[in-house]
């Protein structure tokens, strides 16, 4: 089993995991601010880190992915374009990752669902991970017990009154995230249960399981708040256990299922730079119809990728099928049929 692991993937996975462990150790003041009760969460995160980096490294070795990865960075890092590229990247980050505009172009309701779920998760992760790792913790202000001090990597980063709206929002931020995720999830679930198209292709493991996982994390989290605020802590430790279980299962699932797209999808940013370069440089012209149909860069890169995949649509006269535009390829099927039939007409 171990010998079947990809070498590069394992190496990168182990390196990333070690880096995280060191960061946790140092960031928590040599574990001074690390809460041992949260060790299970930390272990699951460490496992997920290995899994994600491993899968990502294996994925990057696929010929087409490797090509885009290489080209994307090459084009991005060109010194003459670097400042402009950084600005463009910022714009793309806001539009594609922040606002997720490409989803609203497809379906506004799907956008709403995805926006609520993704930002709910991002915010929740941004809050919980530093807390779990001991990078951030709160202390009562020694000068005034009514105040809290937010400690980031062991230094005071801000202070706020415990009984103020800032304090209330800070301590309930995860509840807001949970509500946003549940609303988004309800919209997504409704689509999955009523859209004929979605229903025909969805699978339990790929499409329902992630929603169920998020739901259980959110609901158990909200129940903890309910128990603490209104039920005098009734069943709190049992709920805490349930919550921990659902979070840990979700973390472990991260590298395997649908959630992996969170890490894959940003590759779209690199593609935008590739496309921009393609638009600004020489176009490939179809050898049959003499019309431009793609960038020369793309066509030539694809020939290399196809060769690496042992798919070589190259003819004896040197014509490569990639030099023929997709429209001509469609026509060629009918034209070859016509030739076989022996001219006009049908069988």
């Amino acid at each position: 089993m171990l010998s079947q692991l990809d070498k590069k993937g394992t190496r990168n996975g182990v390196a990333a995991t070690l880096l995280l462990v060191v960061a946790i150790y140092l960031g928590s003041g040599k574990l001074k601010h690390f809460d041992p009760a949260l060790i299970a969460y930390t272990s699951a995160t460490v496992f997920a880190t290995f899994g994600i980096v491993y899968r990502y490294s294996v994925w990057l070795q696929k010929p087409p992915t490797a090509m885009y990865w290489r080209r994307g960075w090459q084009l991005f890092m060109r010194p003459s374009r670097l400042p402009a590229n950084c600005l463009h990247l910022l714009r793309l980050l806001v539009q594609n990752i922040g606002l997720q505009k490409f989803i609203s172009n497809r379906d506004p309701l799907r956008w709403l669902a995805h926006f609520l779920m993704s930002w709910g998760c991002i915010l929740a992760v941004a809050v919980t991970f530093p807390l779990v790792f001991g990078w951030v913790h709160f202390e009562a202000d020694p000068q005034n017990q009514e105040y809290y001090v937010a400690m980031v990597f062991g230094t005071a980063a801000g202070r706020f009154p415990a009984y103020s709206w800032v304090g209330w929002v800070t301590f309930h931020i995860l509840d807001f995230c949970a509500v946003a995720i549940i609303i988004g999830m309800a919209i997504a679930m409704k689509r999955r249960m009523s859209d004929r198209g979605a229903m025909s292709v969805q699978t339990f493991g790929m499409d329902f399981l992630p929603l169920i996982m998020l739901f259980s994390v959110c609901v158990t989290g909200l129940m903890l708040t309910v128990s603490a605020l209104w039920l005098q802590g009734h069943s709190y430790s049992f709920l805490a256990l349930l919550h921990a279980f659902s979070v840990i299962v979700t973390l472990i699932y991260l590298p395997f299922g649908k959630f992996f797209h969170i890490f894959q999808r940003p590759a779209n940013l690199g593609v935008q730079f590739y496309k921009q370069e393609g638009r600004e440089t020489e176009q490939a012209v179809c050898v049959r119809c003499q019309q431009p149909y793609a960038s020369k860069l793309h066509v030539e890169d694809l020939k290399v990728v196809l060769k690496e995949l042992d798919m070589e649509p190259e003819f004896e006269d040197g014509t490569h099928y990639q030099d023929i535009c997709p429209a001509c390829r469609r026509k060629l099927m009918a034209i070859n049929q016509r030739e076989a039939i022996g001219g006009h007409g049908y069988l």
Partner: protein
Amino acid sequence: MENVFIIDPARCIGCQACVQACSECGTHRGTSMIHLEYIHRESTIQTTPQVCMHCENPTCAQVCPADAIKQNPDGIVHTSLKPRCIGCQNCVLACPFGVPKYLSDADQMIKCDMCYDRTSVGKRPMCATVCPSEALYFGTLEEWKARRRGKPVNQWRFGRQTVTTNVYMVLPESAPKEVRIDVRLKDVVSIKREEVSV
């Protein structure tokens, strides 16, 4: 009896029924995925419909950097998985049959999935349901053979690349098992005078 999809471009009359019906499909409502190509509009009325050939080893999926194209055990090659597709258009350029379409608004690829919402429950795909001339046929091979001439072929050679497809195309009985696609053929054939009878 197992159903097969057989295309016969020579029978296409260019009525566009398939194009309209395709956009009614549940998996991609509002967007037609079938291509209806005019061979050479100035000199011939011939048109040809192109659906996904559902290759056994799909080039589109192989060149996809995002693992966004999945194949079912029943051979259906699905459209891009929306969370994964990064809109790179590798598939659009690499497919030997020119099938995948790129939607720039959504920044995604979309392609024929043989109306999976229908075929997965035994119904015919939209295009084959409405095609009046059986340029697009979906049904059993036995039924097809009972009333049609020629033979359905599903193995193609593009240069050094051999592609076997789950969708067939009609060729004469004499056609080889593996058809070599000739790229030098012209769009139109010149019709000899004596062939034209007034």
